[in-house]
């Protein structure tokens, strides 16, 4: 028994000592970058590193995979102390306002240190806080309408019939296609309001006023958008599903005619090898009777932020790669990451025809679409307002009065904002 006790105590001692050993070395004195998605952001950064190190062989660059939510948790836990943060980190476009506002000591103001000309204006505006710029734009979330040409043909339509149209015409086509094929045109996650906010931005609308206050109750553009959206859902032209996985399932199973979403959805569509050649893209429908309505919008994307750390100059010099057309051309085949740097649209890979999408040069087309996207007024409280609009849309779909639902959303958002 004594032996057993001695062994147990020795084990505890050894393990206790091991507890003080390093679990991993924290990068120091080199460029450290945090981003997520091995096949997209990380792959793009690896290429940028390779191209940069060709000219700067002495610079050590460490790219670490960290989830978007984990980056946010670590910034919160740092409480403004940047010693545990990297030199560059990736931020979701609609999160950057909130984090720069709450942790201004973390994010470096790069307004006067980076050339922002030739980036898409709608994308650029998302990382501007109080007139100062805090991010180098990366991938585009320009909205595309992707359609199954074989399904449209069955109903007697082509993608040209869905190009440059408004939502009234879309509803007519949707009803006809549903009658002839039994298929809904679109699908989306219930309560997520991606489609509603895509439609809202397409006509220059926003959930916020220029002065930062919430703009939900009495927002005529938002009401018109929700009315159109709810009509589609009520008539079965748009089917709501319970989760993101189910939404992807509707595309992979071929149970919808198409989708309207940020261009990053094309990576998912292109992974469906059995559907090659059956898809094509065009622009989205425009709102009817609404000032500033266009056929273009944005959804998603991310931006590189420079942290107030020791290597700011080196980080900014490295991020010049994101003004390099050759870099965007090089990352396109492997990642499908579409540039928000507009000169990239003339690069060889961008102008090449895509066999998957009926021969359309999809990448150059998307960059062109991106130039026409109306700029959006955003806020640090974007995700709070978005959640409240989601509740309003769901309640209105279930028979609630839209005006009072939007008033509730306004009140809840203002409460969160501390008004």
């Amino acid at each position, binding site marked *: *028994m004594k032996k057993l*006790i001695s062994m147990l105590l020795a*084990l*505890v001692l050894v*393990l*206790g000592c*091991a*507890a*003080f*050993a*390093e*679990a*991993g*070395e*924290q*990068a120091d004195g080199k460029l450290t970058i945090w981003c*997520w*998605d*091995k*096949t*997209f952001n990380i792959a793009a950064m690896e290429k940028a590193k390779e191209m940069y190190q060709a000219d700067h062989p002495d610079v050590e660059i460490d790219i*670490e*995979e*960290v*989830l*978007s939510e*984990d980056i946010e*948790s*670590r910034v*919160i*836990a*740092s*409480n403004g*102390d940047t*010693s*545990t943060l990297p030199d560059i980190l990736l931020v979701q476009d609609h999160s950057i306002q909130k984090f720069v506002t709450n942790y201004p000591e973390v994010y470096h103001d790069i307004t006067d240190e980076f050339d922002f000309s030739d980036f898409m204006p709608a994308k650029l505006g998302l990382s501007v806080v109080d007139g100062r710029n805090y991010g180098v734009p990366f991938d585009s979330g320009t909205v595309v309408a992707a359609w199954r040409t074989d399904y449209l043909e069955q109903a007697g339509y082509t993608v040209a019939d869905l190009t440059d149209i408004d939502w009234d015409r879309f509803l007519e086509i949707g009803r006809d296609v549903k009658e002839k094929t039994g298929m809904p045109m679109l699908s989306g996650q219930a309560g997520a309001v991606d489609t509603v906010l895509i439609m809202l931005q397409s006509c220059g609308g926003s959930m916020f006023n220029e002065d930062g206050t919430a703009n939900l109750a009495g927002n005529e553009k938002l009401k018109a958008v929700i009315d159109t959206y709810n009509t589609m859902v009520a008539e079965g032209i748009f089917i709501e599903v319970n989760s993101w*996985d189910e939404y*992807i*399932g509707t595309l*992979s*199973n071929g149970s919808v005619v198409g989708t309207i979403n940020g261009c*990053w*959805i094309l*990576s*998912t569509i292109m*992974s*469906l090898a059995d559907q090659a050649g059956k898809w094509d893209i065009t622009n989205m429908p425009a709102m009817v009777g609404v000032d500033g309505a266009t056929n273009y919008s944005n959804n998603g994307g991310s931006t590189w932020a420079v942290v107030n750390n020791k290597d700011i100059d080196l980080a900014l010099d490295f991020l010049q790669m994101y003004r390099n057309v050759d870099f965007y051309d090089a990352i396109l085949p492997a990642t499908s990451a579409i540039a928000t740097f507009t000169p990239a649209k003339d690069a060889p890979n961008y102008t090449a025809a895509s066999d998957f999408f009926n021969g359309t040069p999809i990448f150059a087309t998307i960059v062109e679409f991106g130039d026409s996207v109306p700029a959006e007024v955003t806020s640090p409280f974007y995700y709070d307002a978005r959640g409240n609009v989601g509740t309003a849309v769901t309640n209105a779909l279930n028979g609630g009065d839209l005006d009072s639902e939007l008033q509730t959303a306004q009140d809840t958002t203002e409460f969160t904002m501390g008004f």
Partner: protein
Amino acid sequence: MSEGTFKKYGKRTLVYVFLILMSIISVFPLYWCFISSCNTTAEILGGKMLPGSHLIENLTNLFSQQDVLSAFKNSVINTVLVLVLSLAICSVAGYGFEIFHDKGKDIVMGIIMMSMMVPFVAILVPLFQMFTKMGFVNKYIGYILPSLSTPFLIMLFRNNARTFPKEVLEAARMDGLSEMGIFVRMFVPMMRPTFAAAATITFMNTWNAYLWPKVVLQTPASITMPMLVANLLSGYVVDYGVVMAGVTICTLPTVIVFFILQKSFTEAVAGAVK
């Protein structure tokens, strides 16, 4: 068959049907997890409920995309450290709280119990600040230290120490056994089911921990299995076959530990002392 026998067997049949149904509902997520790791994304999203032939392909992709061995090793080291040290600390604390008498012990126990009501997220930022200053970030010590003494385990050991026969305690003292000797030679063997239950709970909590590790373990070399699985879900395109292969590898140790300790675990939960 008499009416009484019919009633008896009818009732038993209903109970078995109900239990089988509940068992299926309980086991189904595990079954779905395992069979999905053998299928492609298209098959999973298509609702396929039978095993496929893509297990090797999914595992190959998983191991090529992520450093699974390193994450698994980190999870094992973190979990074993927390398991051994927390059982050693909390069992002594629980035993002490029950066996020794002091006016202030109930007040101290009350304070410990009250700390259970403070959510971990509330102390996350100050704890991280403190650990940063102490140089514990990215070290095993940083990960395990907040988990070593938990109010729940102290309470579990204290409650079960109440069933430790006082006659045994007094007899051992009369025979001249030291207090540490009583704990090690009398208490520990008799409380084996309690230790098994505490080990099972600690193993599951530590193995599946996510919030604290993702904040304090910041380098790729120090990530754990749950963090690795979360990384698989981060992209615009998610390979669900690979994700489920990762989930399966992450789940297996918990299942194995539970199967090994399930008998003792049940005894401890039921309050049995041999």
